């Protein structure tokens, strides 16, 4: 597994928490020297997921970590909520945008912006999304 070099956490309860959360993620990304484009991708993905948490689960807990896989560092973000859960995760991960529909949960988009992406959900219990963005994408 990866070595954790630094860790922080934030509870998301209301919409006003989104921007401070994004800024925290940015701080971490800047510290490991991530390029502007990769930073933007990371923070945009994080924004999507954190808004999801607010919209569907009334908020949740997030963690921000600096991790290392030996020769490269990266940022790992976790989003844990106790919301209704997603009944069909596979379906939620397929794109609807090519048919002109709305972005839905924006999950496939967030995945495309990340280096590694994982989602676990149990109906009635909640959802946990973990994503990693390595420094060099």
């Amino acid at each position, binding site marked *: 597994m990866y070595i954790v070099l630094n860790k922080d956490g934030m509870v998301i309860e209301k919409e*006003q928490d989104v*921007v401070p959360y994004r800024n925290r993620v940015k701080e971490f990304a800047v510290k490991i020297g991530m390029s502007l*484009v990769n930073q*933007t*991708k990371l923070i945009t993905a994080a*924004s999507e997921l954190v808004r999801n948490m607010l919209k569907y689960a009334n908020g949740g807990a997030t963690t921000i970590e600096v991790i290392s896989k030996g020769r490269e560092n990266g940022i790992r973000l976790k989003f844990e909520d106790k919301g209704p859960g997603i009944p069909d995760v596979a379906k939620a991960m397929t794109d609807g*945008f090519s048919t002109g529909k709305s972005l839905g949960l*924006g999950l496939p988009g967030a995945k495309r912006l990340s280096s590694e992406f994982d989602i676990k959900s149990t109906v009635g219990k909640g959802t946990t999304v973990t994503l990693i963005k390595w420094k060099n994408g």
Partner: protein
Amino acid sequence: MDRIPILRMGNFLLVTIQVDLYDRLAQNLESDLVQMVSKTEAKGVLIDISALSIVDSFMGRIIGNIGSVSKIMDAETVVVGMQPAVAITLIELGLELKGVHTALNVERGMQLLKEKILVEDSEPDDE
């Protein structure tokens, strides 16, 4: 803090978004714009996002809404000043900014709007 200023530039309206929008602010902006377009009979709306380093689907929806609403009021919308990193991210995210034009900056945006309006007004009307 509560409302985003909307500037009038001749036939057009200019909105410069410099802070991250949240729900209430976004809703206010939409309704303020509709009112202004109606009141001034503006033919074009310019949304300057050169200060935004993050545009997510929430923001994308707002922009799309402004475009749609303006269109109904017979005004074209141009989004100007998108940062390169934002453009790259939006494409990867799969977010389509439908119903709005894009231009490099306000100047080009106004040029674009003028061309669009010229095309529409090419009725042989001697007014």
